Every structure is written in structure tokens, then in C-alpha cells.
């Protein structure tokens, strides 16, 4: 085996890969800031979608408010019963 390729390939999952990294006792660098904005190429910054379809973005925020109200009222009704 010493003269062969030192490559071992097998079926795995992201969590098993993560376990293998954990077991490898590697020292990792750290990151504190975020990964915004995203640019895939020069002159191709994906920041347009921060504001695209403003009406739908507004509906989604309002729907979230309504949902929280519904959940709170449902919880109150259940506790009073």
C-alpha cells in the first residue's frame, strides 16, 4: 500500500465529514464579520435582491406580524379553556 495512491474514497455525509474534522484535532482560524455582500464575479454584486419585489417583501413582514398575533391569541384561548 505504501507505493499506491494515498487516496481513500467512500460514501459519507456532511455530519460524518464534520466528525472526521473534529477527530483530526486541527486548529481552525476564526471569523467575526459576515459574508455580505456576495459578488460572484467582478462587476457582479448580488445586492439588487436586497430591495427587489418590495411589495412582496412588505407582505411577508406584515404576514409575519399577523402570524405572531394568531399564535398568541391561540395560546391565550387554550390556557383559558
Amino acid at each position, binding site marked *: *500500500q505504501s*507505493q*499506491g*495512491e*494515498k*487516496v*481513500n*474514497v*467512500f*460514501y*459519507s*455525509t*456532511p*455530519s*460524518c*465529514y*464534520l*466528525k*472526521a*474534522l473534529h*477527530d*483530526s484535532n*486541527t*486548529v*481552525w*482560524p*476564526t*471569523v*467575526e*464579520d*459576515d*459574508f*455580505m*455582500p*456576495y*459578488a*460572484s*464575479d*467582478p462587476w457582479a454584486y*448580488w445586492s439588487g*435582491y*436586497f430591495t427587489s419585489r418590495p411589495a412582496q*417583501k412588505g407582505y*411577508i*413582514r406584515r404576514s*409575519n406580524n399577523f*402570524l*405572531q398575533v394568531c399564535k398568541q391569541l391561540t395560546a391565550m384561548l387554550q390556557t383559558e379553556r
Partner: protein
Amino acid sequence: RQSTCGYEACPAVKPGMLNVHLVPHTHDDVGWLKTVDQYFYGAKNDIQRAGVQYILDSVVDELVKDPARRFIYVETAFFWRWYREQDEATKATVQTLVNEGRLEFIGGGWSMNDEACAHYNAVIDQMSLGMRTLYDNFGTCGIPRVAWQIDPFGHTKEQVNLFAQMGFDGLFFARIDYDDRKKRIEDRNMEFVWQASHDQGSDGNLFTGVLYKHYSPPPGHCYDVNCNDQPIMDDSRLKDYNVNDKVADFIEFSKNKSKAYRSSHIMMTMGDDFNYQAAHMWFKNLDKLIKYVNARQAEGET
């Protein structure tokens, strides 16, 4: 009933070697060019050839054939649509696959949410809905350990802070700034501990990995029904025998890729958008790839 899901179900690795983790996956957008239900049924395939019901049908068939095979599934909105229409025998089969770690849920939210425009409240709700659905059907073996944001266009601290506090052990994604990627590959900084919260301290820390080339397979090794790469043709009596070329190409790519990472492990995402509608094509060729690459360990270079 005994369960061996999670980290205990992981395959053995070989010390002193470059360990290449093949991760079969399908990226299933919960609505994009088609609606969520069109994607589920495979309607309007003239827009995009994609039917998630067929993906889950055929993946389960292929996983049953060989206990070494693995598959990850991410979008619970699709999985819920599929699972509730299965008969009891199929549900029992899926539960066995999950309990043995052969089918693993990754991410696990109702969808893979955007990080730029989503409110944190809504992120928690959609993650809770997906996780609750998985837990109700599969118990603790259904709970993902790894977050999977392979397609969102940029990534935010608050998302990672939330993931850390939801109990995830790690996160993987693909899209970072092209210049940042170049520098991180040079400096071997593709994997790191993301300290995402000033207030939470280490409770907001999460191990994070950046994928090498988007979330696609290595060039030349897409074996999906939607791909055009050559299959592995391994009968030397037939025309276009290509095992040596295929294996050499895969090993070269693996070695180059490993230069960007710090450990002796790399992860190969073997799949792409709405892949595995005919899972047999993928698994048949991956079985051969594993067999012939590992055969080089004993033979030596020729």
C-alpha cells in the same frame, strides 16, 4: 429498537491518507422557476426538468440496495409532501434508513432560507416547522446536526448565531465573494470557527466550511440523468474503456482541492439542482468510482 444514526453511523476513515467523503445530495429549491407543487410533481418540465417525488422514490430504492450508500435530504417542505403519501411499508423502510444513518436530514428547515431579507423571527419559525415535522416522524434520528446553506447569496452573522443556538454542530455553504474565496483557498482558510455573536460569546460560535467549487460534483463526474458526462465504462472488452482516465482525473482533482483545506479530509458534493430523479445512474457510477479509486491504494501508480 436500536438506532445507530448520527455520528455513530459514520464510515471508518483511513489515517495517513487523503479521505474523500462523497456526499450524494440534491438541491431542491422550494419554488423558483416553477412553483413548489410543480417542482414536487414534476409538472411543466419544459420550464425545468425537475420532479422531487421521483427523486425521493428513486433514492429510497437505491439506498435499500446497499447499506454503504448514503444520501442527505434538506428541504422538509418537499419531504413532508412526499412522506405523507407513502404506504406503511415504505414509511417503515424510510424509518429504518434514517435510524441507520443511511438517509440523513441536513439543514432540516421547511426550506433553505435567504439570509439577507429574512426576519430572524421568521427564520426561527420556518426552522421550527421543519425540525418539528422531522422529529414527529423520526424522533431524535431525524434531527439534523449540520446546517446546509449551499445556495443563499451571501451569509449573515445572525443566521449563524441562530443556528448555533439551535444546537447545530456545523454549517456549510458555497457562495462567498470571489476575491475572498481566492484568498481563503491560498491561505487554507476555507474552514473556520465563526464567532457570530458578541453578546452570546462562545454560545454563538459555529464551525463553518466553505465548499470548493459551488455545490456541484468535480468536473466530468456528474452522473445524473440531467448531465452529459461520460459514465464509467469498465469492461475492457468493450469500446471506450475509461477507468484509468476517470480514476486519474478524480485523484488529481482531489489532491488539488485538498491543498485548500487543513485536514486530511475533503468533502465532495455529488449532486446539483434537482439531481437524483433517476438515482440509479448516480449510485451505479459512484459505486464504480469508489471501487476503482480505492483499488489504486493497493496497486500503486502505473
